[in-house]
């Protein structure tokens, strides 16, 4: 019934028209739009690549800091870290002023066996040692310690 009514019309005869060459041009336009839509992708990829480089360099710096965390140690040792004992002072003096020890050795060398037998080092008082040096050595001379 419904179809019978509609049979009077030819559905292939279309009163609606399109501009000449419309579909050919439209196909090209649509493909061009698809190309345009693809263009941002490489830009995004480039940004990602740049970011990955930045992240990589930052990671390398952080790892470097972790693996070598300490700065070169200062040569100056804080005085609070040194135990000031007699032994440490003696060691320090021997290291820093070896000439003093050499001077003492030269004095001993100058003593004869009799002198050595006659005296007891333990009995030497500081003033007696100074007197001995004053009496036996020319204080105006420079002694070579080599």
């Amino acid at each position, binding site marked *: 019934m419904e179809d019978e009514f509609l049979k009077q019309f030819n559905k292939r*005869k279309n*009163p609606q*028209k399109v501009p000449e060459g*419309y579909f050919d041009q439209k196909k090209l*336009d649509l493909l061009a*739009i698809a190309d345009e*839509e*693809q263009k941002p992708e490489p830009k995004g990829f480039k940004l990602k690549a740049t970011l990955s480089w930045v992240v990589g360099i930052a990671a390398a710096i952080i790892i470097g800091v972790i693996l070598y965390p300490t700065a070169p140690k200062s040569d100056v040792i804080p005085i609070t870290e040194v135990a000031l004992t007699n032994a440490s002072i003696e060691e320090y003096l021997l290291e820093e002023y070896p000439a003093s020890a050499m001077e003492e050795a030269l004095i001993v060398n100058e003593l004869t066996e009799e002198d050595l037998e006659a005296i007891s080092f333990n009995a030497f008082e500081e003033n007696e040692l100074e007197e001995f040096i004053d009496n036996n050595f020319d204080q105006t001379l420079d002694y070579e310690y080599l």
Partner: protein
Amino acid sequence: MEERILELLNQKDKSKVAFELIVSTFSERLYWHIRRMVNHHEDADDVLQNTFIKIWRNMDSFRGDSKLYTWLYRIATNEALDHIRKNKKSQLVGADGESVEYDNASGDLYFDGEMAEAKLHSAIASLPEKQRLVFNLKYFEEMKYEDMAEVTGTSVGALKASYSLAVGKIKEFVSKD
């Protein structure tokens, strides 16, 4: 052709080729489907372009759960309906709230009002958009009700009822003159 397009869609690097095939196979059919909905060529041209942009952007999301052509028609239909609703303000609205934008001859440069079939088109243009859609898909596209259900998201029974109502209104419109 649809099988070939589906094969290409399954290969990610072939999506451009698949799109080219979709354009060459369906652009004309989709244009006429849209044109019958929006009537004017310029509007149909805009809607067709938006339709293919959406197709291109969503090609990866097509899983083949529905037929390719019903998926394409659904996008085109939604775009056309969206366009009609956006332009509602510029349309004449009848007393019953239904669109009466059927003065094709004065509104569209690309309409031959002298043809007998022009009266049919004017009658179709007078239908509410849902009935117009159903009538066009059934009469011009010769689409099965099951496929129409996929396109419109409406049950087959409701579609049959809409088509019957549409034909009745067209008959009434034509018999008036």
